[in-house]
């Protein structure tokens, strides 16, 4: 869940960005994520969608999906408009499959229905097949992936 500290930190990021020339924005945000402790990273990731010309930060956001720290992953994957607005399809698909893997709730992935592609459906079907072959339970959240009409 987003905490008051994250809201405060996000406000500081927005203020700092407003004071910096545009060509330094990406490097500044990259340093905040790289040098941040866990909640600092989460706060920056939650603020990304609100930054000016937010598409400039897409590589940083995709990279955050590679985190093994579950709260960092959910800061970008859940309750965050950024991926649905800016991720290319392969990155969005990988994020959704990872959410299934780590048990992050798909109901909280913003824009999931609109971004669901045939390829994502195939990946989810393959995941169900792999789990079935392994005799492992299927996460209930796969039902939230609907074939695009």
């Amino acid at each position: 869940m987003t905490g008051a500290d994250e809201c405060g930190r996000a406000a500081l990021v927005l203020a700092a960005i407003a004071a910096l020339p545009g060509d330094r924005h990406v490097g500044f945000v990259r340093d905040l994520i790289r040098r941040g402790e866990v909640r600092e990273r989460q706060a920056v990731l939650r603020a990304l969608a609100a930054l000016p010309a937010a598409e400039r930060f897409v590589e940083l956001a995709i990279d955050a999906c590679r985190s093994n720290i579950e709260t960092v992953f959910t800061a970008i994957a859940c309750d965050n408009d950024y991926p649905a607005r800016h991720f290319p399809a392969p990155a969005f698909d990988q994020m959704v499959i990872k959410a299934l893997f780590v048990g992050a709730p798909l109901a909280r992935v913003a824009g999931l229905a609109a971004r669901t592609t045939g390829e994502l459906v195939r990946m989810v079907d393959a995941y169900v097949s792999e789990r079935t072959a392994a005799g492992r339970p299927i996460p209930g959240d796969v039902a939230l992936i609907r074939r695009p009409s």
Partner: protein
Amino acid sequence: MNLFDPHVHMTSRTTDDYAAMAAAGIAAVVEPAFWVGQPRTHVGTFEDYFLSLLGWERFRASQFGIHHFCTLAMNPREANDPALVDGVLALLPGYLEKDGVVAVGEIGYDDMTPAEDRCFAAQLELARAHGLPALIHLPHRDKKRGCERTLALVREVGFAPERTIVDHNTEETLPLTLASGCWAGHSIYPHTKMDERRMVELVQRYGGERILVNSAADWGVSDPLKVARTHDAMHAAGIADATLEAIFWRNPIAFFAQSGRLDPAELETRPAIDQRQLHEGNSVLRGQTPKVDVPSGPA
């Protein structure tokens, strides 16, 4: 019987783990270079990591009577960081020539991005140039497609399948891996990847040829005794001793001996434990009486 764990990240484990592994029969390990849980931010940290696998970790293993080998590479996940890839790829040729390096790995796919394609192919070429086998990690997500793409890339590059091990197989990928002529690794994990019971069923179905089993133990919830536990489960299920010896000892030796840096005869004798020894002035001991033994005979 001696056991071989052909994929275990000992740098993340304690000396208690080394002692328990040795007691359970583990006589040799291969430690692949991998990702360390969070992204590294400088090329220099990779160099120090490679040096620790070749130095301190090899020494630590020897202090518990375990032969330690490693594989070096840029791992698939960090292959997506453009600030690191070229620098790490430039480091590798010097380190791939070192004693104790028995393959290029872990390479392969994580997200299956174009950056991963490039890094994977470049490192297969490095393996070829240095006369080393390749250890390939299958992705956790979209694994079957990842396996198909992996085998297609190995074919496209023209890398010899008999010098390739594809690791982290499941029920759905093993038939593909075996049909390709590559060796097939299986990581036995407490909750994910593969477990002992399923591994028994796979060996009952496919036999032991080109099959390897590892613990892939690392900094997460994992178990460095999974090789020994899986051996015991197969024995209890009535799998023939000759098959067990192939899977848990002969196969990893045959595969990694292709590097020319692992002498099967030397492996038949455990390193003599002499805990009086120091590595660059450091001991694994903290005030204990050093354990010292004489070399044991052939196993």
